[in-house]
C-alpha cells in the first residue's frame, strides 16, 4: 500500500497546460527523488500532492497521518525566534504549550541546532542555519511523509552535503517517506531509493531508475560514477540539464 498516490494529475496556469497525466506512488519509508529540467513543473507536483494547490484533473490519495514540508527558501516568520518557528506546526496542531518545549528541543537537536541558537531571530542566523530551522520545523510534528521542494538549491556545495546527510540521517531515524524535488542529479542519487524523471514539458513521468543500496551507504565514487553513467549513457536523463529560464514554473 503506497502512502501517496497521484493518478492522472493535470494542471494549468492561466490556461497554459503545465502538467498532464502525472501518476506516481510513494511507498512507506521510501524516499523518491523527482528530477527534471527547471520549468518542467516539478514544484507544482509537490504543491498539488501536499494540497497547496488544487489539480485541474486527476486524483491525489494521501494515506499518511501527518505531512510536513521544506521549501526552497526557509520561509521562517521573521518576528518569531528559531524556537517559535520550529514550534509553529505544534501551535497549529493545538499542542499544549508546556509539551511543546521538549518536542522543539528534540527536533532542533536532530537538525543540528544548539540550544543557544533557539532564542535567535531568523535575521540573526546564516542561510544554512535558517534551512536547519526549516528542517527542524518539518521534523517537529513527527511526520510520516515529508515534501522537500528543492530545499538546498540556494546553499553552497559543502553546506548542501551537510544538509543532505542530515535528511538521510533523519529519514533513517524517523522512518518517514519523502518526495524530494530537485534538479541536481548528484543530490537525487545520494538521497533517494528511486529516481523519477519528469518529462521536460510536464507530459507525464518519463521513466524511473531504482538505486541499489540504501541512501547514506553509497560512497562518493559510486555516486559520481552512477551520475556519469546516467548522464552519458542513459537516454532518460538526456534533457535533465536543459534550461529555459523564460518559462515560469
Amino acid at each position, binding site marked *: 500500500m503506497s502512502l501517496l498516490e497521484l493518478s492522472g494529475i493535470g494542471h494549468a496556469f492561466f490556461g497554459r497546460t503545465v502538467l498532464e497525466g502525472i501518476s506516481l506512488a510513494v511507498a512507506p519509508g521510501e524516499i523518491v527523488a523527482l528530477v527534471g529540467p527547471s520549468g518542467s513543473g516539478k514544484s507544482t507536483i509537490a504543491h498539488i500532492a501536499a*494540497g*497547496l494547490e488544487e489539480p485541474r484533473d486527476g486524483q491525489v490519495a494521501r494515506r499518511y497521518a501527518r505531512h*510536513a514540508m521544506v*521549501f526552497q527558501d526557509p520561509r521562517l516568520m521573521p518576528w518569531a525566534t528559531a524556537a517559535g518557528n520550529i514550534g*509553529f506546526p505544534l501551535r*497549529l496542531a493545538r499542542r499544549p504549550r508546556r509539551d511543546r518545549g521538549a518536542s522543539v528541543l528534540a527536533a532542533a537537536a536532530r537538525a543540528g541546532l544548539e540550544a543557544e541558537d533557539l532564542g535567535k531571530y531568523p535575521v540573526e542566523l546564516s542561510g544554512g542555519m535558517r534551512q536547519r530551522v526549516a528542517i527542524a520545523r518539518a521534523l517537529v510534528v513527527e511526520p510520516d511523509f515529508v515534501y522537500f521542494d528543492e530545499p538546498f538549491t540556494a546553499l553552497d556545495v559543502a553546506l548542501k552535503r551537510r544538509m543532505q546527510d542530515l535528511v538521510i540521517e533523519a529519514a533513517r531515524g524517523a522512518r518517514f517517506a519523502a518526495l524530494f524535488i530537485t534538479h541536481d542529479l548528484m543530490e537525487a542519487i545520494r538521497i533517494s531509493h528511486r529516481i523519477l524523471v519528469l518529462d521536460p514539458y510536464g507530459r507525464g513521468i518519463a521513466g524511473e531508475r531504482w538505486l541499489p543500496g540504501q541512501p547514506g551507504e553509497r560512497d562518493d565514487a559510486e555516486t559520481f560514477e552512477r551520475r556519469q553513467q546516467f548522464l552519458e549513457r542513459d537516454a532518460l536523463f538526456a534533457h535533465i540539464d536543459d534550461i529555459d529560464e523564460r518559462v515560469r514554473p
Partner: protein
Amino acid sequence: MLWVGLDRLARLGRFLWSGWAGLAGLALLAALWQAGHEAYGAFILPAPLETLAAAARLLTDGSARAMLATTVERAVTGFALCALAGTVAGVAAGYSPATLRIARPILTVILGVPPIAWIVLAMIWFGTGDGTVAITILISATPIVFVGAVEGVVTRDRGLDAMAKAFGAGPVRRFTHVAVRQIAAHLFPALLLALGTAFKVAVMAELLANAGGVGGALARARAMLDVAEALAWVSLAVAALILVEYGLIRPARAELERWRDAAAPWGVKR
C-alpha cells in the same frame, strides 16, 4: 522566565536612555526659537522659557487641566474610532481586490477634501460639540489607517501563507497566526500618523467650532493677542500628543517588533 524579565528591563532601559537624544533635539529647536525671540522681540515670539513658565502657570491654576483633558479625550476617542474603522475596512479591502479597486477613488476624494470643509459640514449637521470634533477626526484620519492596513495585507509574504497551509492552517488561522503580524508592521506607522492628525484636527475643529478645549483657549488667546499664552497652549497640546504616543502606541509597537531590534545594526540600536 527570569531571562525574559531581564530582557524586557534592558529594553526599557535602552528606551529611556534614548530619551536623551530626543531631549537634545528639542534643545536644538529651543535654541532656534530663542534666536528668533532675540531677533524679533518678546511680542512677536516670546522666549521658550517664558512660554514654559506660562504653560506651567496654566497647568497649576486648574482650569487648563480640564480643557486639556477635553481635547485629549476628543482626540483619543476620534483616534480610536478611526483606528478601528480604518483597520477593519483596510484589511477587508486588502483581501478583496474588487473592493479595493472601488475604494481607491473614494479614498482620493476623501483625502482631497480639506478637513476645514468637513468641520463646516459637521458643524451644520451636528452643532458644536464632541460629535463635530469626533466626526472630523474620523473623516480626516481614517484614510491614513486604511491605506496602512491595505498595504500590510497586499504586501504580506505569500510564501509564509503557503507554509502555514502546508502545516495545516485554515484561512482563519493563516490570518491570525501569520498575516496579522505582517499587517501590524505597516499599520503602526499609519497609526502614529493618524494620532498626530487626530490631535491637530481636534484643536482645529475646536477653534473653528468654538467647542472649548485647547482650540477654544487658543481662540481666546488670539482675540487678546496674547502670543505667550497661545504658544503655551500649543506646547501643552504637543506635550499631550507626545505623552499618548510614547505611552501607548510606541510600547505596543516595540513589543510586537522585537525582531527588528535584533536586526538593527549596533549604531542604530543605541
